[in-house]
């Protein structure tokens, strides 16, 4: 069935200089030059609204607008819903989507407000006073022990030390490009934070950034070998992902080319299918065995992170993980991104990270085991304010991926699964990969993190807090607006005005 295109290319002929940049830059082949008529023409049915042409058009002659040719209005059956039905009726297939859940579900970050000092205690000016954002992730000992001479035995379980409480979340080499990985690795290294390999192994060129790398072990075990495990600063066991809890991953064979297949240790062109569960983990005891296997393999030098999707009984799951020997729990909320996920899963499974985080932090404190693990919060952390709210709710640090992709140029067109990312991020096509110059990509990531760090400091200073640890779990610094009693109770915060 033919639809009127979702987007329209609006080209101002009076501004167009026929430089043909749009044509050259569109991997979807929307634009073309008609030499006879000396005009640029477009095939809008191919447009995904990635804004590449709009961004590069030197005379701002282009804009992409949402088509107003809609089906008859229906509050129940939206245009989108109807078209999805048509598409499925045509293909018999599962719908695929990319990036995070775009639906208008509650974003609790936006319903939480941050405190500031007035009169009774002073706000602190981060430009004048030291303001610390460094955090250590890992298990903290319950009791100090002393050496025979009375000094403290300063040996600690392995820790990850971050200059600021933000890290780049897992995105595999394969789902994103070599240059995207290079950008992340270089930025993490320059910033003193960490990036995460995702389930695609670690390209040999990036072993040099190992000190700032978290290597992931997921259900497909792609790219996992001894050197890989030892290359990073921490190992993450991926049990689930916020965008697609309960299912595995699927890298199409078209992306498993060249170095991608080599790094994953799979034949070139073969689909890389990660199973839904780890087939050696059917229970919490099994997880404990994998945690300790990995620790044994790396001589207990590296902290082990267990990453789970935020699902209904996340607090209990986290409690189990905290007792499994894991050093860090990463919780990924339902708005987290993905390179490809079945639409129905992405849009309907999992719970918001804010509630999951609050519930987990509370449960671990109630059980007196909060010190056993650090908590990383991920799944749509969009700004420094979100970071501050997450830390105040109880997170030790945040994972960001969508925001990192945006910094590298992503325009959230949500077409990663097509492999034709015009921004050189979610693609393996060499001509497209080239569009992301890691010099620029890494610098933009560094800029973003610098900006966030400044903002975090400003917000902390306003609260009269001069070190991030005094913010962690400091829920008194938060107030809810427009939330129900139940929501407030789960978040563990008061309503504004209270």
């Amino acid at each position, binding site marked *: 069935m033919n639809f009127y295109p979702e987007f329209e290319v609006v080209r101002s002929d009076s501004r167009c200089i026929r430089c043909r940049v749009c044509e050259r830059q569109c991997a979807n082949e929307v634009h073309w030059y008609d030499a006879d008529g000396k005009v640029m023409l477009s095939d809008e049915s191919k447009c995904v609204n990635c804004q590449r042409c709009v961004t590069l058009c030197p005379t701002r002659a282009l804009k992409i607008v949402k088509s107003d040719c809609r089906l008859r209005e229906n509050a129940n059956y939206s245009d989108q819903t109807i078209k999805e039905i048509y598409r499925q009726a045509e293909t018999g297939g599962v719908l695929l989507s990319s990036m995070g859940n775009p639906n208008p579900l509650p974003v609790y970050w936006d319903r939480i407000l941050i405190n500031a*000092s007035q009169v*009774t*205690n*002073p706000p*602190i000016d981060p430009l004048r*006073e*030291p303001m*610390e954002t*460094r*955090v*250590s992730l890992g298990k*903290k*000992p319950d*009791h*100090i022990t*002393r050496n025979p001479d009375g*000094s*403290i035995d*300063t040996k*600690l379980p392995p*820790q990850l030390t971050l200059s600021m409480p933000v890290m780049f979340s897992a995105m595999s080499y394969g789902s994103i490009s070599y240059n995207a990985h290079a950008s992340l690795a270089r930025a993490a290294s320059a910033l003193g934070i960490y990036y995460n390999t995702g389930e695609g192994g670690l390209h040999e060129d990036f072993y040099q950034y190992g000190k700032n790398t978290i290597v992931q072990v997921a259900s497909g075990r792609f790219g996992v070998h001894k050197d890989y495990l030892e290359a990073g600063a921490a190992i993450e066991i991926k049990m689930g992902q916020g965008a697609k809890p309960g299912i595995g991953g699927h890298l199409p064979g078209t992306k498993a080319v060249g170095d991608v297949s080599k790094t994953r240790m799979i034949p070139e062109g073969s689909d890389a299918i990660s199973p839904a569960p780890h087939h050696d983990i059917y229970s919490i005891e099994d997880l404990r065995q994998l945690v300790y296997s990995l620790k044994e393999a790396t001589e207990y030098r590296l902290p082990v992170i267990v990453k789970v999707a935020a699902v209904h009984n996340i607090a209990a799951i986290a409690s189990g993980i905290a007792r499994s020997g894991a050093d860090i729990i990463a919780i990924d909320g339902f708005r987290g991104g993905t390179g490809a996920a079945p639409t129905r899963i992405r849009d309907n499974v999992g719970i918001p990270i804010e509630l999951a985080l609050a519930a987990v932090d509370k449960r671990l*404190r109630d059980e*007196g085991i*909060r*010190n056993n693990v650090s908590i990383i919060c991920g799944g749509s952390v969009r700004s420094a304010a979100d970071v501050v709210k997450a830390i105040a709710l*109880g997170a030790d640090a945040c994972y960001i991926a969508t925001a990192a992709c945006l910094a590298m140029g992503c325009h959230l067109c949500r077409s990663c699964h097509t492999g034709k990312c015009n921004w050189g991020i979610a693609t393996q096509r060499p001509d497209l990969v080239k569009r992301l110059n890691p010099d620029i990509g890494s610098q933009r990531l560094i800029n973003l993190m610098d900006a966030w760090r400044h903002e975090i400091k400003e917000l902390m200073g306003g*609260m*009269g*807090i*001069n*070190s991030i*640890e*005094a*913010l*962690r*779990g*400091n*829920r*008194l*610094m938060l107030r809810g607006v427009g939330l129900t009693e139940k929501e407030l109770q789960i978040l563990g915060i008061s309503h504004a005005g209270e």
Partner: protein
Amino acid sequence: MIPLEGQVRIPSGCAVSAMISRDGRRMNGERIIESMVPMHDRSNGLGGGFAAYGIYPEYRDFYALHIFFSSRSAQSACMTLLKEYFEIVQDEHIKVRKMPQITDEPIIRRVFVSPMQSVLRHLQIDEKELVVRVVNRINAQSDGSYVFSCGKNMGAFKAVGFPEDVGRYYRLEEYDAYCWTAHGRYPTNTPGWWGGAHPFCMLDYSIVHNGEISSYDANRRFIEMYGYKCTLQTDTEVITYIADYLLRRQGLTLDEMAAVIAAPFWSTIEGKSGADREKYTYLRTVFPSLLVTGPFSIILGFDGGLMALNDRLKLRSMVVGEQDDMVYIASEEAAIRVMAPEIKNIWSPAGGEPVIVRVKEGAF
């Protein structure tokens, strides 16, 4: 209805003052009361109090519980509870001087107790832990009984009122102590509840504090994992518990405790050498949630000494004076000048640097 301490978090400004004899000489409460007079404006009449060390030498082996009761029935219920765990050695009124400035008095009792060995054996805990648990239980029940002092050979005296009035009300000139601390309160919202006045005590630790800590909920939620219950929602309370946790339960020294709650900046730690750097790194890494931020000056009294500490940015005033065996500490120099008019050696300690004063071994 305006909520009480414990029902809502109440920030407050304050005045603090302390004097201690390193020789262990015992002094009556006259001078410490006088020291609060020039700092009258730092209080607003909604709370004042004192802690005194070495005042019950004849009962030094027993825990001196100072308790407010709202009624006879509360008193009787509480005593029944106490008797389950303790031998009651002495149960008496704390003598007061009736005065118009101090009103709405509760029943104020002093009870010397000794833990029952059978109970300790049964619960497999030491006697300090038993005292802590029982006191916490009484205070958490909030049914009209409130234990506001429970150490040995020391005691806190507090009430709603200006501190100099509170001191005279409790007839502190009749007590002799080698160490006195005092507190005047400026709460921003409270009808004034006697239990909410300072010092706040746990065993022999007493805290007087001036400030409003911004890390409060981070500190509270951490410390509550270890059996403490911050019922009053005051800074002083949580700092007292932190002190108890770090000093008694983790066995840290006073210096180490200072390095946790007013931790040196990472940049400072990195500038230190070898063992020191490792120690400070370790303490910050292990106890991040016990870092106290925001303005504070606190005086922690304990059996045999005291420690004064400012927040690491020194956002609150605190001065120290020294003369012969005496050390004086106060929010304002004027207070020290009242206690020791001829004093020469007065300084302002740097933020985060603890001033620790100990009485000569065996002198108390």
